[in-house]
């Protein structure tokens, strides 16, 4: 069944993204992993929209792409500022919120 293959692809992509977010030390890589997770969700959206023959799945996917672009912009700006302050983009170095 075609849908299953799409869902498996989305799940694999999401797992790769989660791994990247949790394991990578480079903040840019973390951001890229987040993009992977978002795109995994997009694949699910389009797949389910196709399956149920409604366009709203694809429309949501387009919205998510647009918002993700904005999010990456903000995220990269934060990373840039972090680098300027600390000369590092290693997420292990940032624990200012430690309780």
């Amino acid at each position, binding site marked *: 069944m075609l849908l299953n293959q799409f869902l498996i692809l989305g799940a694999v992509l999401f797992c790769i993204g989660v791994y990247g977010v949790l394991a990578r030390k480079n903040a840019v890589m973390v951001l890229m992993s987040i993009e992977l997770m978002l795109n995994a969700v997009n694949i699910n959206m389009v797949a389910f929209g196709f399956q149920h023959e409604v366009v709203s799945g694809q429309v949501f996917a387009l919205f998510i792409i647009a918002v993700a672009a904005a999010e990456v912009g903000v995220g990269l700006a934060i990373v840039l500022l972090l680098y300027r302050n600390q000369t590092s983009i290693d*997420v292990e170095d940032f*624990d200012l*919120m430690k*309780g």
Partner: protein
Amino acid sequence: MWMLENAFLIPLIPALSFAVILFFGKRFIGADRVHVIGITAVSLIWVLSLVAAFQWTQRVEHPSPDAIAQISADGHGDDHADDGDDHAGAAMDSESGHGGGHSSVLISPVVTTYSKWWSNGGVDFAVGTHVDGLTVLLLVVVASISLLVHIYSTEYVKGDRRYVHYYAFLSLFTAAMLFFVMAQNIVQLVVGWELVGVCSFGLIGHWWEEKPNTDAALKAFLTNRVGDIGLLVGMIVLWGTFGTFSIDGINAAISASPGTQHLALLVAACCLMAAVASKSGQFPLHTWLPDAMAGPTPVSALIHAATMVVAGVYMIARLYPVFYDGFSIGTSSINLMALIGGFTALMGAGLAFAQWDIKKVLAYSTVSQLGYMVMALGVGAWTAAIFHLFTHAFFKACLFLGAGSVSHAAHHTFDMRKMGGLKKFMPQTYWTFVIATLALSGIFPFAGFWSKDEILLGAKVGQQNGYPLMLIFGCAVAFMTAAYMTRVVWYTFHGEYRGHGHPHESPKVMTVPLWILAGMAVVGGAFNLPGPVLEPFGLEGLAHRVQTYAEPSVYLSGLGLSHPDPSLSMALIGLGLALSGIIVTYLYFWRKMGPHGLTERNKYAKAGYTFLENKYYLDYLYNDIIVASIKKPIANGANWFNQNVLDKAVNTAGESARDSGRWIYKWIDQGAIDGSVNAAARGADASGEGLRTIQSGKVQNYGQLLFGAAAVLAIVFVIVI
């Protein structure tokens, strides 16, 4: 008759003047020119009062049909019906016909009721005006004296630190007094009564920086409060008996059926007598009046001689049927009112001998003369009392303003020992003072002679019986009045000047009012001349004007009040007593005859003098004996109650509260509440210690927890569903 129906304007004008002076005087007119407002307002009401008086005389002389009281067989009709039967009242008027030029038609008062003031428990409290001859007479007296005092004060209190308040209070007093005299019902009467009391209090204490003035103001106020209780109770009794507050209604009801409510009226009259005693300075509540001389002298002239202190006399005259019936004035030959009045007259005259303060002599003289008026009312001589009120207002105001003028000249002292010989320095004041003294003493042909003569005659003839005791009192007072006033004239104006500095005559703004008042003291008697005096001149029509115009015969005729015929012998006796009083004193002081130094030589005379000097020890009686004796047992009782009842209860409550507090502290507070609070705190502490390790500040640790938790939840979700 427009003025009579719209009489409310007369008190309204000085009331507005009061508000303007108090709120705008200082800022917009200037503190030293506020008298302009007061004088303008009082001049206006003076004119209006004269218009009202003129219109009232027109109403009596040419009564229109609606002015004639309708008296039906079953009593007095107080509806002023307008049918044209001109002589309906005349037939009833058999007893008030004799005695001079009394009108044979009964003229009804102009009663205007404006609106319901307020309503309570089905009882309506109206507000309105009651205008008749008595009212317009008082209007003219109050407005005239007030106007002269306003003018006189511009010089006397010039530069005073509370000039604005002084004039504001004068205006308020004038408004209150005018409101009082035209009260339509007894509630308004009480309100006006209290208002003039407040003004009196405020003006006695005008210079309140000095303690004696404050004390005098408080004494006046508190003594009046004693009588005010009587006033309230008396008014409530009247209302309970007749079911109406209207003065017209109460008087008409008694006049229609005299004697039917005798007991209630006796109670009401006794209570109201207490009020009269306090306000009009009658024994035994007169002690505040001499102390009230602490106020500025023009105030003493206006309030404590001419107008406010006659409020009690006015109240008796206004509600005369109540007293007439209550005290059985018509049939007895002695009664409470006549006795109080006569005794007060005698006592006041006696005290006037032992005073060195000129104002206090005049104050006791006022007490004495007020006693005369009350005595006259007590013997049934209504017109004589009101006529004496009228003449007395002018010559006593003249005397007080004269005393003020003397004090103004002689460095603000009222002590006669520091005066003397002022005749040559201030002739204007001297002559006006002498004229007023002659009037007060009752020397022919001055005003006091005519009114005093009528009182003595009234006491002699009485109604059904004469009042011999009152006649003796009256004659003694006539003699004493002449004597003590001559003493004042001697000490103040004759002999050598004993003060310091150079006394000088007062300016015109003070002497002109004196001359006007002295003029009234000369001609004031002409308003109620007996018929025989006028007959030789063919002027019988002018006889007994006060009686004709002022007497509310519409009420009094139902009581059967009669007027004595003029008696030449009585007039000669009165005149002889007054002249002998003057002559004896003249011989004593001018010719140095008689027992000089008797009070030093003779211990009985000395004791008598001390007795007088200490004002019969009445102040001691009130303060040291009555107040102290009441104070001690009450204080002891209160102490016992305090110690044994209140303290015990408080202590028991305190101890039990303490014990229960201890128990609660030990078991509930410490055990339960503190325990649970501490446990919660420890739990929070421990969990915080444990959980703080989770908050590493590292984003990825949070992410791990988040995704781990999400995974666990997902597994749970899958298994459970």
